[in-house]
């Protein structure tokens, strides 16, 4: 039986605002705690630098992008690399749905920011479950 392919999580690499940090915290939550068996993080900065190994990982995987702002660098870099983005998230959308959580801090998020990261992680978890279920069904077909 072939090894199950991992989903690649591609979070924002921005370090100027809390929203980039929220995407990374959410990615850590998914890849290290919630769904470690089927997800792996690829740092966006490696793609920006043209790292061959990182690009190769993307080419052979399904990507979940987690963007921190409207520039959507993670989604764009994945697309530019020729990879397949199966689900795209933006931390701003999570905030828009939960205005009471005003994120602050970059290296260290405040409680509201951490809450947004957890909410984003839950959405990514659901996408991972859906994609892996679809993959299982495809394999059975």
């Amino acid at each position, binding site marked *: 039986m072939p090894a199950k392919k991992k989903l690649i999580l591609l979070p924002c690499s921005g370090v100027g605002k809390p929203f980039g940090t929220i995407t990374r915290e959410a990615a850590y939550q998914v890849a290290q705690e919630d769904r470690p068996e089927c997800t792996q993080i690829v740092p966006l900065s490696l793609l920006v630098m043209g790292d061959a190994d990182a690009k190769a990982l993307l080419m052979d995987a399904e990507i979940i992008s987690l963007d921190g702002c409207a520039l959507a660098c993670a989604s764009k870099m994945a697309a530019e690399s020729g990879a397949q983005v199966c689900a795209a998230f933006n931390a701003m959308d999570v905030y*828009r749905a939960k*205005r009471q959580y005003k994120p602050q801090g970059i290296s260290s998020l405040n409680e509201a920011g951490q809450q947004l990261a957890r909410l984003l992680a839950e959405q990514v978890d659901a996408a991972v479950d859906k994609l892996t279920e679809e993959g299982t069904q495809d394999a059975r077909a």
Partner: protein
Amino acid sequence: MPEVFVFTIDKFSFRVPTDRLYSAEGLWALAKDGIIRTGLSDYLQQRSGDVAFVDVQPGGKRVRRGELLVSIETIKITSDLHSPLAGRIASVNPAMQRSPEDINRDPYGEGWVCELEPEDWEEARLSLMTPQAYFAYIQQDAAQELE
């Protein structure tokens, strides 16, 4: 399509369409059929960052020139913007609630904020900047910022 002034500084490009007037704060005012449509200039939206929330004064309300018209919350700042004219708010762009990012995506088009029935347009327009004046103003402002 109106002529558009464009200037680039550092990695940023800013557009100023010539078919409307501008307040120093960065709101534009476009007159059409007796109604004044307003929104944020490209320069203001880029300086402000991604818009998360927009709170516009309610439709039907009368505002004085210089009175609070709209508050925006972006990933960088929360900012109050003031009416460039006196009048009644005839309509608020419904997109401001469901997709405030339209301000960033299309500040002069789908990202318009509200429309006013003017009460003092002839007077108010004299207090606003022409596109040429606003273009010069933001060039100077951006250059000072870089220094």
